[in-house]
């Protein structure tokens, strides 16, 4: 991985080499004072990203019923309140289901499709443009597309009718047994192809002769894919898996807001949506931010798990 060399200094040459000629001018061009140039971006990042993240932990300890009121400190009361709430339990369950279905389905499928793309099959240009296109589509456009497709009189039911399976048709987003599965299907719809394109780009850097050699040795397709190609890009697979995991866990609120509003009942309420709903729907900011912290902790725990599962003992570079 070329990028892991950032800190290790694979290209440590420039600074040292340039130091000599630069001497004399304000302590040289390479003076550590150069790092002042990073201060504006660090300040920006601290104010708008780190600050709010830290503030979450503070708000979680407040009784704060809506943005127009003044908050009061109530310590851990919010936490007890949240953990006793059945809605929260449903949200935890839905989030776990969502992640537990989306990631194990998406990553292997995307890897296989990405591998297939990287072999440049016939028509792979068309394929990669199609696979790539969900990456261009915003969440609100995705929401509107599927609002149409999944509505009672929409495309999904129309398709079922056309093939004579009317009985399977349902109002997908308003039926408690299909609301969450529909959202999961949309996650997969947009995620698999996109991730496959990323894998394909990465696999293109695996030297062809290694694969060739394995093939001459009589390794089958599946073996080459999983035992040769996969280990060579494992670190990348791991990074993408973590990113997809985080995105799935954290960003489901927008799509749910657009499509099901967490319902019917709590059948499609995830933790991410609960954070939003409690803050803006029910004006309970303390509750909302306790859930936010739980979400953050789950995110970290999940990342550690993925890292452990996809650990490569000897990390191959290149």
């Amino acid at each position: 991985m070329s990028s892991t060399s950032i800190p290790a200094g694979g290209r440590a040459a420039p600074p040292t080499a340039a130091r000599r000629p630069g001497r004399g001018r304000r302590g040289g061009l390479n003076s550590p004072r150069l790092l002042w140039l990073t201060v504006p971006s660090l300040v920006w990042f601290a104010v708008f990203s780190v600050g709010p993240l830290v503030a979450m932990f503070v708000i979680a300890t407040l009784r704060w019923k809506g943005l127009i009121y003044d908050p009061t400190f109530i310590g851990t009361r919010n936490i007890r309140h949240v953990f006793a709430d059945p809605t929260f339990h449903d949200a935890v369950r839905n989030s776990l289901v969502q992640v537990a279905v989306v990631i194990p389905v998406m990553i292997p499928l995307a890897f296989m499709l990405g591998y297939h793309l990287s072999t440049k099959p016939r028509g792979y240009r068309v394929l990669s443009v199609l696979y790539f296109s969900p990456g261009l589509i915003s969440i609100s456009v995705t929401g509107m597309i599927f609002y149409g497709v999944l509505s009672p009189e929409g495309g999904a039911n129309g398709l079922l009718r056309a093939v004579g399976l009317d009985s399977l048709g349902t109002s997908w987003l308003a039926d408690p047994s299909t609301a969450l599965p529909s959202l999961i299907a949309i996650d997969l719809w947009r995620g698999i192809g996109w991730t496959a394109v990323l894998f394909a780009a990465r696999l293109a850097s695996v030297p062809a002769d290694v694969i060739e050699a394995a093939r001459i040795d009589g390794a089958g397709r599946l073996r080459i894919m999983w035992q040769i190609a996969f280990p060579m890009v494992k670190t990348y697979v791991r990074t993408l898996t973590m990113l997809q995991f985080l995105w799935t866990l954290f960003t489901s609120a927008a799509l749910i807001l657009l499509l099901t509003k967490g319902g019917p009942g709590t059948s499609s309420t995830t933790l991410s949506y609960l954070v939003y709903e409690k803050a803006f729907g029910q004006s309970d900011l303390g509750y909302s931010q306790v859930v936010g912290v739980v979400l953050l902790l789950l995110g970290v725990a999940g990342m550690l798990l993925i890292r452990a599962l996809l650990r490569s003992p000897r990390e191959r570079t290149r």
Partner: protein
Amino acid sequence: MTAPQPATRLPQPPPPPRRPAPPRPATAAVRPSARRRSPRARGPVAGLLSWLYALVLAAPLYYLVVSALKTNIEIFTHPFALPEHWLWRNFSTAWRTADLGQALLNSALISAVAIVLTLGLALPAAYALARLDNRLARLITGTFSVGFLIPPFAALIPTVVLSIKMNLFYTREFQMLFLPAGALPLSVLLLTQFMRTVPPALVESAALDGAGNWRLLVNVFIPIAMPGVVSVTILQLLAFWNEYLFSLTITGTAPDIRTAQVALPTLVSDATDFGVLTAGTVLTLLPVYVAYSLSSRRMQEALTAGAVKG
């Protein structure tokens, strides 16, 4: 940095697949064709599955486009047929109802200011990090690598509070200031990688000619890192353009300042005209697809380099 602590030992963000090390990085990414046709075997099953999935991807997009030219009744009765009468007025209705003209303008304005700010902040930082390799520089790089993993949604509510405290709630200005912050980690990391490809000899000779840091950055580093600058610009513009949840909650839904992504869902009602809704969706999507068709290679490279999207 509270929560993502353990992430510090994670690998760097996904490396740009088109490793910038070689002299002309603009090449590699999704264009593996330079390599001779790969000898990897493939089977009929994989081919079949890949086209099946392509079909699954294409079907809703097709449904979207044909529905945009139909009436509700036609959408319901013949969902996948071509429209009998091409109902172009769906587009004008959508345009007027959601005030899409103003909304697209707002999106463009916010994205433009945000990208200028992002580059203005990220380029000097990347320059410094590419030139120096001491402990502090590594610490800063590490900070950004962790920051890159923070999903932007995590701190939505405190960000709303921040916008209120700054007296910028329900304004476009807050988004202009806020969006660059989320974009900075990845932008700085990518630009640093590209700037590290500047040959030391070049820096040396420029320095001998008396070039200061500012001239080095503008005349040497930025031109050489141009492919990276372009990638970052495309990647972040798309992210800014597509941003939804923060725009909804912070900029709000007032017709004169809301973005296109926020305006579009206002076409949903108790009696949604699906023809108008899908027409509006097509209109919102159009700028991105026009940009994509003009520079699909560049865009694909940029997005795979970023490896994340919003």
